[in-house]
């Protein structure tokens, strides 16, 4: 009983904290209703589809293939990304390139985003800096699994 009474102070402090939050936030909400702009907002919520949070520069988002000057991918189909990929979601098919400097180019380059774990190993492994994860596109959803299979055309965009 004594112990329970000892907690009484903390109980009061707890309700003071929550009610402080309530009244301070309500104050800013009401200011907003009356059209008064304040630096502080009543809520920290970012209302996602309308407002978007700025993505950090190093954020790993959807992959892209870096094109050359002629618009073809810089990739030389060395298969390092497909080898290092832990979720085995990259499929590369090489073909011979008449250009002697390149020698090979990917005739197929497929990433199954549904399997990708966004570890970024493919980006690190690439010797040609041909694949990057800097598109800033994080809204990757599809109605079927096939929607999530990204091929060469989609990745070069």
């Amino acid at each position, binding site marked *: *009983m004594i112990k*329970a009474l000892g907690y009484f102070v903390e109980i009061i402090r707890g*309700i003071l904290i*929550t009610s402080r*939050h*309530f009244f301070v*936030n309500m104050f800013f909400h009401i200011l907003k209703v009356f059209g008064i702009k304040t630096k502080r907002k009543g809520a920290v919520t970012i209302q996602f589809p309308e407002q978007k949070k700025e993505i950090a520069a190093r954020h790993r988002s959807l992959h892209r293939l870096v094109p050359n000057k002629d618009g073809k991918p810089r990739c030389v189909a060395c298969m390092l990304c497909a080898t290092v990929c832990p979720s085995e979601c990259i499929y590369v098919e090489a073909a011979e390139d008449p250009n002697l400097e390149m020698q090979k180019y990917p005739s197929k380059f497929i990433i199954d985003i549904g399997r990708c774990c966004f570890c970024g190993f493919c980006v690190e492994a690439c010797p040609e800096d041909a694949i990057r994860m800097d598109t800033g596109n994080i809204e990757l959803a599809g109605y079927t699994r096939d929607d999530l299979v990204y091929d060469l055309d989609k990745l070069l965009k």
Partner: protein
Amino acid sequence: MIEALIVFIKIVCALAWFLLLTLYLTWLERKESAVIQDRIGANRASIFGIRIIGLFQPFADAIKMIFKEDFVPAFSRKFLHTIAPFISFFFVAITISAIPFGDSIRIGERTISLQILDFNVGLLFILAMLSLGIYGIILSGWSSNNRYTLVGGLRGAAQLISYEVALGLSLIGLIMVYPSLKLSSLVQLQGELLFGFLPKWGIFLQPLGFIVFLFAALAETKRAPFDLPEAESEIIGFFTEYGGLKWGLFMMTDFMEIIIVSTLLTTLFFGGWQVPWLAADGFHWPWGGEWLMAPWVVTVFHVAVFNIKVFFFCWLQILIRWTYPRFRYDQLMDFGWKLLIPLSLVNIIGTGIVMSIIR
């Protein structure tokens, strides 16, 4: 004939008030918790693109619950399983009949009290009906034929019965001070003045009784910090096997209990519809001077003030629910039996001593 019509209208109005408030209490709960936690809360429900800070959310919730499958587990006792939420709901909903919303009004020859039924034993009636609500809990726990819900139901019954004792005992002091069980006369008596300026409300005469009643009543509503019977997130509670509208009835019962507790706190400890210094013909300030008003203005004042008090206590209970973590079961029982019941007994003895000295 006309008497029956008046009673019917009163029932409809009181139930509409009760259910609408229940509906919007769900909205208030979501919004208030959001504001406490620096969020915005449900604001997406819209009709034709109009979304007034999420005020349509309760309707969206209700429509969703109505269209859900009415699922009954295969091994449950189907009749009891179906009837349990209705028992819970009914015994809470009926308590509104004894709550006085305002002073009696005069229309022509007739005097109409703003209360469905003015029982001689109104207070006991409300307490009894709230106790009977336990049947809903224990039946739902038992008839689901699931060991976890059975344990949840037993926990709920044990908790409610323990706190029922403190709830009843804390009111004895109040009944000693205002010698009546009739809620309308309880409120009438609270309209008098103490030392010429202080309204003679229950809170001023029975502060300890108020605290004990508040805690016991919070435990009666089965919400955090006393939410062991349901415990949405961790422990499995008594209505685990329910879905759709039956689950919704249990949820509504919770919110209706909040309102009933708020109305009880208002009626018993905060003067019900009484406004300080407002007599039947207007304000009589204690420092002299008057501010006379028409009788209908006074009635509107009474009902509005009653509503404001009730809203305040609903708000307070939701604030409490979003502040405190859950009790452990032994702490819960200790708090009820070792703290609240002795305190209420002390309150009874103290009230008796003070009354015998003053008399």
